[in-house]
């Protein structure tokens, strides 16, 4: 099997492709971070990206919404499409792209503003509300969908940074979905959270996938197994294997995948 053609096992025909990467090569200066990556992210599914540190998982998702554009010396070759549109095409408005593809980071990063303003910021700059009432509606529904409204409804004027870590992360998710994205990329969103906050985020991810396409980078094999429908294993900048999560964790076809998920290396 050519190195750029990961084994795509089982079931992908049941879903529509939302994001498609083809022959993706990424360089940071002289150093190549991704090699010939071919990977489909399917609509309304949670795709877990797993692999050892430095294997290219985060690089991959940062290419999807062009976060790597701001990295000096980063060069992207190949093609990524969102519903068939070339993400790196000349006609693409990067600001609009990032509204369509939201991102949640490892460490919660609320703005040093009120809870309300954190969520209202995106819709305001994208002109999604024509009145204060509409903005209120977007903020409230986003907080509700992020499973946070009940906990903060009396504290909307408090600073976002005054919330607990888990609440801050859900605030960031509310901020991401407030601009009505199609895709949410998550880069280890639970690594700084305790088990209870992690469980809430995981429940939220399961709820969100009904309306959004989600790709999540995680180092927790159990988390990947719990929350995703598909899993892609990255190693040394290549996608080694992609498949339904149950298959990856019960019968990985590639020896390197098996060795990684069973903890024989990594």
């Amino acid at each position: 099997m050519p190195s750029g053609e990961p084994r795509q096992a089982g079931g992908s025909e049941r879903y529509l492709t939302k994001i498609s990467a083809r022959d993706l090569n990424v360089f940071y200066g002289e150093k190549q971070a991704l090699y010939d990556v071919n990977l489909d992210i399917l609509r309304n599914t949670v795709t877990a990206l797993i692999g050892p540190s430095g294997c290219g998982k985060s690089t991959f998702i940062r290419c999807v919404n062009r976060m790597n554009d701001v990295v000096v010396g980063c060069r992207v070759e190949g093609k990524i499409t969102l519903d068939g549109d070339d993400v790196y095409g000349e006609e693409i408005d990067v600001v609009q792209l990032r509204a369509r593809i939201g991102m949640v980071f490892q460490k919660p990063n609320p703005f040093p503003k009120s809870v309300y303003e954190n969520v209202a910021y995106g819709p305001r700059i994208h002109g999604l509300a024509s009145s204060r009432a509409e903005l209120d509606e977007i903020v409230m529904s986003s907080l509700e969908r992020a499973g946070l409204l009940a906990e903060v409804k009396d504290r909307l004027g408090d600073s976002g940074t005054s919330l607990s870590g888990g609440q801050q992360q859900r605030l960031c998710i509310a901020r991401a979905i407030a601009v009505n994205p199609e895709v949410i990329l998550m880069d280890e969103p639970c690594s700084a959270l305790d088990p209870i906050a992690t469980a809430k985020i995981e429940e939220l991810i399961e709820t969100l996938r009904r309306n959004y396409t989600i790709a999540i980078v995680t180092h927790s094999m159990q988390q990947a197994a719990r929350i995703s429908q598909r899993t892609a294993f990255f190693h040394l900048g290549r996608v080694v294997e992609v498949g339904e999560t149950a298959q990856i964790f019960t019968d990985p076809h590639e020896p390197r995948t098996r060795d990684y998920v069973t903890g024989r290396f990594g």
Partner: protein
Amino acid sequence: MRVVDPVLQELRESLLRMGSLAEAILEKALTAVWKRDAVAAGEVKGDDLEIDRLDVAIDEAVLRILATQAPVADDLRSVIAAKMIATDLERVGDLARNIAKGAVRLAEHPEVAIPPRLRSLGDEVQRVLHRALDSFADGDAVVAEAVLEQDDQVDADQDVVIRAAIEEITGRPDLVSQGVDFILIAKNLERVADHATNIAEDVILATQARNVKHAAKLES
């Protein structure tokens, strides 16, 4: 070495010990039948208790491993297979006890020659069980496949023994008790072979991620 490795090794050793005990108890029960040895037959019940203890210990080990190690891939399959194999071996112990009960009854009645076909069925089933346990010990799916192929022959041989026993006791009320025990022993042996078949199927699942259970029925 991974943290899970010694835990899995311990599970495997418990299972191998359980397999050895199951073979030994079957051997003792059959020997008791062949030799009309009620004393040896009486020991089988006590021997089976050790198999039951190991079954409980393996249940606990499997729960502990699933809860604390969250095994995946071949580790997960081997843990699940271990649980299923332990259940089959526990049943082999129970079946050996049934055979031993038959040995006690036969010893209490006037001696009747053991049908040669019953002896050969006993030998055959012991070989099948041994091969199934070998396939587990060696992780050898080829041997496991061979075990699966033997099951039909055991079923056929069991039928021959039962038919012969029925013919033997027809019109001979004085032989009915012994004849029925020969039939029951043949039936228990056939069930032992079924459990050996299950063990072989579990070995194939663990080693090759292939579930071959009920394959013929499901394909038809």
